[in-house]
């Protein structure tokens, strides 16, 4: 528990930091995709295209906000806000490093440290589905509705595998507090004890934030832009923001749960290690997007229910046997 004002200052710093990273990431993603495709990416706005995020932000602010005539106006306006809220809220429980001492006060590098931290993060991740499905439903457009339906089925299918695979980590750590989970990995990273769980969690994470190869909810070649077809201006930018924040929080969760969090050789400070690991995972996200083609919908559902779910069951039973026998 922190003082109120410390939490507030931390929250504001974290939100500003997250949005800065979001802005930077849109540029880095376009640049990297460019290099993957043997192009150069954005170059016209500033040196190396560095001003591109600023130009994008200005454009989002000054674009007209069109709400289709038949749309449910209240829900239409609410949906992107829910998306961003939930994507941001995941970060309230994510620790970026061990507590630091500033002016004789020990300040934890996370806004909130509840006993069920990992559960809070998981819960907010799954709330994202409300933003998506309400957006599709309220738009009164066929593409939006199809995108929202796909999103709903996909997100709930992969959420199961995600929750089941994370159980292995909880068993090994004996705690739901993210800082405890990191502390439990001071000797050996959980990725070595839970290789299958790690793979399932990461694949399900990619599906949860609907990134390539699982980006069927917005599949631009068939559904225009899926659930966000009818959105424009700032509200559309908010869906983008939610997607990138989701990517960041999945990367942060993987880092904390499987990759030792902020532990690492001493030549870098703990927070730097955390950021390096998250950045590496974000690179993997972009790499996946450049490498894979979109999967077909029936294969996506088959993979989720007939491969990921049984595998995560198996992972759960085997891990539990190990913990119960040799605890």
């Amino acid at each position, binding site marked *: 528990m922190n003082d109120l004002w410390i939490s507030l200052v*931390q929250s504001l710093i974290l939100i500003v930091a997250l949005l800065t990273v979001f802005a930077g990431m849109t540029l880095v993603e376009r640049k990297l995709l460019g290099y993957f495709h043997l192009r150069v990416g954005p170059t016209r706005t500033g040196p190396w295209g560095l001003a591109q995020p600023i130009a994008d932000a200005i454009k989002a*602010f000054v674009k007209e*906000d069109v*709400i289709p005539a038949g749309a449910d106006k209240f829900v239409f306006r609410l949906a992107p806000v829910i998306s961003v809220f939930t994507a941001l809220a995941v970060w309230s429980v994510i620790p970026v490093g061990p507590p630091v001492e500033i002016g004789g006060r020990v300040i934890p590098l996370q806004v909130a440290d509840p006993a069920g931290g990992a559960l809070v993060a998981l819960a907010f991740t799954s709330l994202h589905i409300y933003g998506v499905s309400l957006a599709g439903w309220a738009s009164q457009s066929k593409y*939006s509705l199809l995108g929202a339906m796909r999103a709903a089925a996909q997100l709930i299918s992969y959420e199961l595998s995600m929750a089941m695979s994370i159980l292995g980590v909880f*068993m090994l750590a004996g705690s739901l507090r993210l800082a405890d989970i990191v502390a439990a990995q001071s000797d050996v990273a959980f990725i070595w004890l839970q290789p299958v769980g790690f793979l399932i969690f990461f694949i399900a994470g990619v599906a949860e934030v609907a990134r390539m190869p699982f980006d069927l909810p917005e599949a631009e070649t068939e559904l225009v832009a899926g659930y966000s077809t009818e959105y424009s201006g700032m509200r559309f930018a908010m869906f983008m923001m939610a997607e990138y924040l989701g990517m960041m929080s999945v990367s942060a969760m993987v880092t904390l749960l499987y990759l030792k969090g902020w532990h690492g050789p001493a030549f870098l400070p703990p927070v730097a290690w955390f950021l390096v690991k998250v950045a590496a995972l974000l690179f993997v996200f972009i790499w996946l997007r450049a490498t894979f083609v979109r999967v077909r919908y029936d294969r996506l559902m*088959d993979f989720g*229910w007939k491969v990921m779910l049984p595998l995560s069951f198996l992972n759960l039973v085997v891990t539990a046997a190990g913990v119960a*026998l040799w605890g």
Partner: protein
Amino acid sequence: MLSAYTDVVIFFLAGAGFVLLTLAIGRLLRPHNPYPEKLVPYECGEIPVGEGQVPYNIRYYIFALLFVVFDVEVVFLFPWAVVLRELGMYAYVLMVIFLVMLVDGLVYAWRKGVLRWV
């Protein structure tokens, strides 16, 4: 009484403030010029036929039902997973029995062809 969850709420409110501020600023800056043609839902330039909220495949609903079963089960698994080390083999065997019953449901759905999408 302040708890760690209060901090979550504070963060949530800060986030809310930020989102609403962004939307408010946007409202001051952006043009507002709607006319009927602009407000038509996008269908690649065609005039939309019928409602936007078309009937959709019943399979989405079946998957949602299956999801509820397994998700409720996962809720039971979380507390068990945290204290498994202290409870030991007895709790493990009990939970395996519970899991077998649930996997049985998945196998049943699988055999019935519910999981087949097409």
